């Protein structure tokens, strides 16, 4: 019996995600995977999994889950105020659930996406090399769809032994989802921006509009002006900041279109994508320009934070 969690309430949109299917982009299929890779990887490490194991990505609200067998779970990312059997539990910590224990979420306090990892990893349908759910193609994860009440989640493999609860990411290493500064490097078509727009891109405040999902965020802010001939379509990447004719940028996220012909004026660095992943419609953000060297240091800081979880002392 691999049944590990029964879904009492699914939450607004809870999907199975792993590190995605980067090889599928040459077929036009979005790479997908967890929007906040840092929180996803941390959740896995806290329960002794490899980083590539699948987790549940819970958007805006959390599910109610009942343990079908004793298991070790960890909740990271957005703070939706997790509870076990009605008592608050800490995020970014390995938590042991006995058979019949109920994991619930009282409400959103910060961030947009929480991750739930289970020791052994979450099982599901593999599509093009990944368990990640792609809602448009209705493939991967749990029948290619979001969780529903009554679903039963299986574990993919044996939990790492010994299962250790209480492993914790130190508070100072947990990301700060309050600061909405998103770091980026000037992109292929940065020079198509007029001088004033170049300044505004890295200076002005932008608002995440309601037209925002796992594919990307439409941003509202000062109109940015570009010039130049129409571009031939080219391959895109998560974090690309596209600028369509209307002058309002689009930030591409995990389920982004794989090619396009709008100018890409900047690219969000990998260490800042987790921050972007935690933004909600209505949130304000600023882009801050960084050098490749600074991007490398930011990446290393996240890697070493994850390493510290692997080595974390257990109370």
């Amino acid at each position: 019996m691999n049944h590990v969690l029964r879904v009492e309430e699914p939450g607004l949109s809870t999907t199975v995600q792993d590190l995605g299917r980067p090889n599928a982009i040459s077929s036009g299929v979005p790479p997908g995977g967890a929007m906040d890779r840092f929180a996803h990887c941390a959740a896995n490490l806290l329960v002794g999994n490899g980083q590539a194991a699948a987790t549940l990505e819970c958007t805006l609200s959390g599910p109610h889950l009942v343990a079908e067998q004793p298991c070790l779970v960890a909740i990271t990312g957005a703070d939706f105020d997790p509870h076990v059997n009605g008592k608050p539990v800490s995020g970014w910590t390995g938590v042991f659930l006995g058979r019949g224990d109920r994991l619930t979420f009282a409400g959103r306090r910060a961030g947009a996406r929480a991750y739930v990892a289970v020791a052994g990893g979450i099982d599901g349908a593999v599509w093009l090399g990944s368990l990640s759910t792609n809602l448009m193609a209705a493939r991967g994860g749990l029948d290619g769809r979001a969780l529903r009440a009554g679903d039963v989640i299986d574990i993919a493999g044996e939990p790492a032994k010994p299962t250790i609860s209480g492993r914790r990411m130190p508070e100072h290493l947990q990301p700060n989802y309050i600061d909405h500064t998103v770091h980026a490097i000037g992109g292929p078509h940065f020079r198509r921006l007029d001088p004033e727009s170049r300044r505004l891109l890295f200076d002005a405040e932008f608002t995440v509009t309601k037209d925002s999902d796992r594919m990307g965020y439409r941003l509202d802010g000062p109109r940015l002006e570009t010039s130049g001939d129409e571009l031939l379509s080219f391959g895109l990447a998560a974090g690309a900041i596209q600028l369509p004719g209307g002058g309002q940028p689009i930030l591409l996220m995990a389920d982004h279109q794989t090619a396009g012909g709008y100018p890409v004026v900047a690219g969000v660095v990998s260490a800042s994508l987790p921050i972007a992943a935690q933004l909600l419609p209505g949130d304000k953000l600023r882009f801050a320009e960084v050098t490749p060297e600074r991007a490398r240091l930011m990446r290393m800081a996240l890697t070493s934070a994850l390493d510290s979880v692997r080595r974390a002392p257990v109370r």
Partner: protein
Amino acid sequence: MPPLRSTPRLRIHPLGDTALLAELGTRLDTALNTRAIALATVLKKRREVRQAVAGYASVTVHFEPDLITQEALGAAIKRLAGKRPPMPEPGRLHRIPVTYDGPDLEAVGSALNLPAEKVVEIHSRPIYRVFLVGFVPGWAYLGPLPEELELPRRHVPRTLVPAGSVAIAGRQTGIYPLPTPGGWHLIGRTSVKLFLPDSDPPCLFRAGDRVKFFPTKA
């Protein structure tokens, strides 16, 4: 191998810190696209490259930033791009039946001053090249479309284009693989499925393939 005499004007641009765009040129050109596909194929074999995707005249390279810096990868790409590409394999030829009864067929004819039958004849005459697969699953940019059919995109895109619609815009033609919004002119439809979610790769066309449309009755 000696470098090509016409060493391309290769430009490398960062796309964040884990990808870059290598631009071979800015023209819609079969030779440039052949080079882009060849370069992507070679780059995919490198350990530090996660994925390389050819565009019309460019390659987008996703790399492991802990294994190589962007500068070093850019320099390697410049060396590779200077080499003579291997003879391209002739792409597979797909014959696609089309019922030319699209909602824009008459309007396209009027805009171009051509009877609808002539639009059909011109569209189904060439063997098109798959320049690029991407945008949405299964979408392929085909071309070049004969100049006689060149039109800008519709001013107001449709909010929903049915899957299987055969469309034209600029010097390009294509088939909508999924119901999506779209701004191209719809001149026909086909029952051939382009997005094959349960196959790997999950799409019918690959970059470098050739496509011939032939008219069928509804």
